């Protein structure tokens, strides 16, 4: 670790109240993110990707949920456990977020210009006129054609791709150090998706942002990410540079994810799915959460698994792949 990371998440634990009991949806997630780096958080629906992002934004609030443990360092500042008022000054200013649904993420009765300008007025104390001028520049930056006229239009006058550009402009307005992108291209068609991804990569470069990119699309990961963290049942099961993960996935779940991608060069393949389902929050096993669906299941899987290095910056949470059990890791640590 050279300088302090833009975002450093350590042992994050987020819980939700289900039928009166707190159940963990994110169980000890740790990662760090440098400036000008993109980390892709990958996993199937319900594995805790979005909850991780919402926790980092401070948007998991009682009574529904809570961040029960761990630390979140934003540019070295601890933000876990801040009050709502403190969060309001951080959100949108130093940490921005883009959502999945560009069609519903804009207020239908406000002009897009006013919506983007609002964040600037609140966080940067600009006048409305100055904020609108800055918004026009932002629209140019996210490549919205004729920005000066489009500022005064309403969301329904924008296509999905254009709305997502507005959302990006909103998230970038105050030049945050960290950008969380929660499946920002899922709702877009493929050509627009490529444009938006290109735009995001370009903006990251220009502003030196750290980007946490949440997706279940491995094609998108290959295109945009520097590193990948694969999540399963609220834990990171494998993490490493994008090239390593794609060349040599170590965890059986990661391999199953790759096997589930249909291949164009094999004409008569059946689409492969991963059998079984993610264990529900109230029946999480002590050992490996993937064991019940794993083709390589063997003795030792019922014990808690640990995330250990298996190569340069490449870690996996599977004793079959790494040879490390919880006991062995404990011994190693002592």
């Amino acid at each position: 670790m050279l300088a302090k990371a833009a975002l450093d998440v350590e042992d994050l634990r987020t819980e939700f109240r289900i039928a009166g009991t707190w159940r963990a949806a994110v169980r000890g997630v740790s990662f760090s993110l440098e400036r000008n780096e993109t980390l892709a958080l990958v996993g199937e629906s319900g594995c805790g990707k979005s909850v991780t992002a919402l926790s980092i934004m401070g948007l998991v609030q009682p009574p529904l949920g809570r961040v029960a443990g761990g630390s979140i360092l934003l540019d070295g500042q601890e933000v876990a456990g801040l009050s709502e008022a403190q969060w309001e000054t951080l959100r949108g200013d130093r940490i921005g977020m883009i959502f999945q649904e560009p069609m519903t993420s804009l207020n239908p009765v406000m002009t897009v210009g006013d919506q983007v300008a609002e964040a600037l007025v609140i966080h940067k104390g600009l006048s409305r006129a100055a904020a609108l001028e800055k918004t026009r520049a932002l629209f140019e930056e996210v490549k919205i054609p004729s920005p000066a006229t489009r500022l005064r239009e309403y969301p329904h006058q924008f296509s999905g791709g254009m709305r997502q550009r507005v959302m990006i402009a909103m998230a970038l307005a105050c030049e945050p150090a960290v950008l969380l992108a929660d499946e920002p291209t899922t709702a877009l068609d493929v050509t627009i998706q490529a444009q938006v991804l290109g735009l995001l990569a370009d903006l990251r470069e220009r502003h030196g942002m750290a980007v946490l990119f949440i997706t279940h699309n491995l094609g998108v990961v290959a295109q945009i990410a520097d590193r990948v963290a694969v999540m399963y049942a609220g834990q990171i099961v494998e993490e490493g540079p994008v090239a390593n993960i794609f060349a040599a996935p170590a965890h059986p779940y990661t391999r199953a994810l790759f096997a589930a991608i249909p291949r164009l060069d094999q004409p008569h393949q059946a689409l492969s799915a991963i059998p079984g389902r993610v264990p529900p929050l109230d029946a999480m096993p002590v050992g490996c959460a993937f064991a019940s669906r794993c083709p390589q299941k063997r003795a030792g899987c019922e014990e808690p698994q640990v995330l250990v290095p298996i190569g340069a910056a490449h870690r996996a949470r599977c004793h079959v792949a790494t040879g490390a059990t919880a006991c062995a890791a404990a011994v190693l640590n002592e």
Partner: protein
Amino acid sequence: MSATAEAPAVPRMPGWRKALGKARSNPTTLIGAVICLVILAAAILAPWIAPHDPAEQDIMTRLAAPGGDYPLGTDQFGRDILSRLLWGARISLTVSLGAIAVACVIGGTIGMVSGYIGGRFDLFVMQVMDVMLSFPSLILGLIVVALLGPDLVNLVVAIALTAIAPFARIARAPTLALKERAFIEAGHALGYSHLRIIFRHILPNILPEVMVMTSLWMATAVRVEASLSFIGLGVKPPTPTWGGMTRDGFENILDSPWLAVFPGFAILLLVLGLNMVGDGLRDATDPKLRNE
């Protein structure tokens, strides 16, 4: 322009303009609006268009029949009925507009905040509103005016109090749906405070529903005001009120029926007009009827 061409299939948001256009094309709404506007103009212009001073008594011409110098006749003190009706419109409109404005602001705020916060707080607030709703408007108004004493401000307070609960309900329902929408979550992610989200992002979205309620409840307010005046709990005489004039007319209903008929008809006309406008607006903003 190229931008509009890019998204031809995106449905236009059904906004104010569309709703108003639809309301305008509906003859019922149009007639209702004309009635309301005529009464409003009459009330505003009363000092200039009224042929006589509404409080001027003339014992020589008491209980004159309609016609001649007194188009709608005179009452038992010889006061001109037409002039009194015109001035009375001011009281009716002031009280109902004032009361509904107050109820709309207070009730709307209660509903939005309650729906936005949700949970047990919402449950408690809505139970209180239900208790208020269980009183008929007239009874609740009667209790309040009896406690505070009859004058213009107290009348506004009393009628406002009876209309707070329905406005809270009307504001709460769409707030519940809106607060789950992605743009509200996006607002949180941009660091907007709860108050900003409620008043700047939720309020404009629920305004059409609330405005429709406003015109319908105005009609109720006019009725309640007239009823309270009728039983002597309205603005004190000699200030002319439609309810009070109807009451006075009752004493001479056998030989001079116009004394009660004309103010009664005025009340009917205003209530009818407001209801016609309200119904039209409701149809125009009803999502079920919107796409037909």
